[in-house]
C-alpha cells in the first residue's frame, strides 16, 4: 500500500518542474558558492598586496626606498585623475599616499640630527591605516637599526633601549582560517539536503490540502501512517538526490581550490565522499519529516513556505555557530543535524576517530524521523490539520 502511495507521490513530484528545479539549484549552488568563497579568501590571505605610493626625494634615502620595495611598497607618481594607473599594461590602484623626504634628509642623518620625512594620507579611509602602518614599520625598522649601530659605536648596548620586550603571536594563520571555511563545507552540504526537499514537502502536504485532495485521500482505505510514510519517503528521496549532487560537485570542485598555496592538503577522496553521503541518508528523511510536520501544521501553502523559511535557519545557524565557537561536547554527536555536521567537520579536519558515535547519531536521526512521521500521522486524524483550520 505504501508502495502505491509512494509511486504516485514520486510521479507527482517529479512532474513538478518547479520543485525539481529548486532541488537541483539548492544542491548545485552550495558547493559552487563554497568553492568561490574559498578561492577568493585564499587568494586574499596568500599575498600581501602591492602598495603604490608617491615617494618624493628618493635620492635622499636610497636605503629606505630599497627596504620599502622589499616590503612591496613601490613608488609611482600620483595618477592624473582617479585612483588607477597603468603599469606594464596592467591596471594598478594607487593608494594616493605621499611620502616626502626633506631636502636635507641625508645631510641631517649624516650629522646625527633629526631628519624629517612627511607621510601624507587620508586617514578617514579604513584601508589607509593599515597601509600607513606598513610604511611606518619599514621606516621605524630602519631607524632602530640606525640607532642601535650609533649606540654600539659609542660603546652602549642597544638593549638599554628595550626595557620591555613584547612578543606578538598572530594565531590566524592562513591555514587555520581555511580550516574554518572548510568546516563550513559541512554546513553547506547539510543545507543542500534540507533545501532540496523543501518544495516537495510543502507541495505534498499544505499544497495537497489546498488543492482539496488530502481529505479525499485519507477517506480511502489507507491509514494516515501509510500516507505520511509515503510522503516522507518521497520528500526524503529528493533530499538524498540533492545531497548526492552536492557531495559529487564538492568532490569535483575541491581540486580547483588553491589549498596547496597555503600549504594545506585536503583529500576529498572516494571514501570520504561515500562516508559523507551515507551520513546524509538518515538526515534527508529527518529533514523531510521535519518539513512535512511544519507544512502540515501551517494553515496554507503560503504560510507553510514562510514557516519553513524560518525553520531552515536552524540547520544553518546552529551548526555554523558551533563551527565558529569550536564548542565540543560528546552529546552533540547524538543530536540530529548536529551529529552529521560534527562528523563531517571532523572528517574534513582529519580529526575523525569514532565510527561508533557516527552510527549512534545516524540511528537516532533515523528514529527521530520515524517519530516525527508518527506524530504527523496522529495529527492527520484531527480535522484541524486535515482541513487547515
Amino acid at each position, binding site marked *: *500500500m505504501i508502495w*502505491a*502511495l509512494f*509511486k*504516485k507521490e514520486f*510521479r*507527482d513530484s517529479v*512532474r*513538478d518542474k518547479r520543485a525539481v528545479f529548486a532541488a537541483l539549484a539548492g544542491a548545485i549552488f552550495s558547493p559552487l558558492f563554497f568553492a568561490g568563497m574559498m578561492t577568493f579568501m585564499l587568494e586574499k590571505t596568500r599575498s600581501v598586496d602591492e602598495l603604490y605610493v608617491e615617494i618624493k626625494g628618493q635620492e635622499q634615502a636610497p636605503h629606505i626606498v630599497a627596504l620599502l620595495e622589499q616590503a612591496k611598497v613601490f613608488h609611482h607618481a600620483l595618477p592624473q585623475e582617479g585612483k588607477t594607473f597603468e603599469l606594464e599594461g596592467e591596471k594598478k590602484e594607487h593608494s594616493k599616499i605621499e611620502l616626502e623626504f626633506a631636502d636635507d634628509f641625508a645631510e641631517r642623518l649624516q650629522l646625527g640630527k633629526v631628519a624629517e620625512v612627511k607621510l601624507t594620507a587620508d586617514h578617514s579611509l579604513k584601508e589607509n591605516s593599515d597601509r600607513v602602518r606598513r610604511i611606518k614599520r619599514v621606516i621605524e625598522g630602519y631607524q632602530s637599526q640606525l640607532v642601535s649601530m650609533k649606540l654600539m659605536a659609542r660603546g652602549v648596548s642597544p638593549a638599554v633601549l628595550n626595557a620591555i620586550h613584547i612578543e606578538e603571536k598572530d594565531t590566524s594563520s592562513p591555514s587555520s582560517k581555511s580550516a574554518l571555511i572548510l568546516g563550513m563545507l559541512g554546513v553547506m552540504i547539510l543545507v543542500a539536503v534540507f533545501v532540496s526537499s523543501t518544495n516537495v514537502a510543502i507541495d505534498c502536504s499544505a499544497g*495537497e490540502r489546498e*488543492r*482539496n*485532495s488530502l*481529505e*479525499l*485521500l*485519507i*477517506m*480511502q*482505505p*489507507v*491509514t494516515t501512517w501509510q500516507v505520511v510514510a509515503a510522503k516522507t519517503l518521497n520528500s526524503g528521496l529528493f533530499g538524498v538526490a540533492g545531497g548526492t549532487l552536492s557531495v559529487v560537485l564538492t568532490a569535483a570542485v575541491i581540486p580547483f581550490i588553491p589549498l596547496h598555496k597555503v600549504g594545506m592538503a585536503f583529500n576529498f577522496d572516494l571514501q570520504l565522499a561515500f562516508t559523507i553521503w551515507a551520513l546524509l541518508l538518515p538526515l534527508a528523511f529527518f529533514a523531510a519529516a521535519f518539513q512535512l510536520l511544519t507544512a502540515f501544521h501551517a494553515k496554507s501553502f503560503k504560510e507553510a513556505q514562510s514557516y519553513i523559511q524560518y525553520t531552515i535557519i536552524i540547520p544553518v545557524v546552529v551548526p555554523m555557530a558551533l563551527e565558529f565557537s569550536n564548542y565540543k561536547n560528546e552529546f552533540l554527536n547524538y543530536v540530529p543535524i548536529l551529529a552529521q555536521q560534527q562528523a563531517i567537520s571532523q572528517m574534513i579536519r582529519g580529526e575523525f576517530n569514532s565510527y561508533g558515535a557516527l552510527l549512534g547519531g545516524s540511528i537516532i536521526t533515523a528514529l527521530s524521523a520515524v517519530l516525527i512521521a508518527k506524530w504527523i500521522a496522529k495529527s492527520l*486524524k484531527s*480535522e484541524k490539520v*486535515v482541513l487547515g483550520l
Partner: protein
Amino acid sequence: MLEVKNLVKHFGDVKALDDLSFAAEDGQITGILGPNGAGKTTALRVLYGLLKAEEGKGFIDSVDSQIDPQGARKKIGIFPDKFGLYERLTAREQIAYFAELHGLQGDALKTALDRVIKDLDIGDIADRKCAGFSQGQRMKVILAQALVHQPQNLILDEPTRGLDVMSTRILRDVLLDLKSQGKCILFSSHVMQEVAALCDRVIVVANGQVAAIGTPQELCDRTGKATLEEAFVTLIGSDEGIAA
C-alpha cells in the same frame, strides 16, 4: 447498506450531532437534506471513520467504521464535495491510484480501469493530464475514481454543484443505473429538484438531529405543501414539524 446509530458529537460547546440515526438501503437512492451546519458532513465523516463520535456507531455493510475504518472504507466509493484532482497526473493515472489504494493490482486493475473508462465514456481524456479539464470532465474523473473498485455503496456530497446541465444529466443516469444494479447510494444536496427527481427516500437533518424521513411525496403530504422545497422549509423551521 449504510447506517449510523445514535451519533453524538461536540465541537467545543457546539453540539454537532445530537443522537442522529439514519440508514440508506441497497437498491435505493437516499438523499440527505439539511441547512448548512446541520451536521450532514460531520455525520458522513463519522461514517467514513474519519472522525470519532463520542457516542453511537457507523456501519458500512455491517462493518463498524469506528472499529475498522479501513475495512469499512473498502466498501464505499466517495464523491467529495470539494474535489481536487492531481493536476500533474493523467486521468488514467489518477483513477489507477485510487484503484490501487483499494487494493486492485495487475490484470484486475487494468480490467477495472478499462471498464470504468468505457462506462463513463472518458476514453478521449484518459491519457491527458488533469490540468485544464472542464468541470464536467473533472466530475467524470472523480466519479470514475469513486467507482473503479465497484463499491457496493456510493456516497456523494453535493455532487451537482458547479455542473452544467449535460454533466448533471450524465451523473443522474449513472446514479440510476447503479441503483438498478442494487447499489446503495447516499447523496447530500441543496438542489431540491435534484433530490425530488432522484431520491427514493429523503432524510431531513437539522441541528444534528433527523427532522423527518420519507419519500419526497410523503414529506410534501405530511407538511401539506406542494413542493419539496416548501416542505423542507416547514420541516426545519418548526419544532412541531419534527414531532409529527
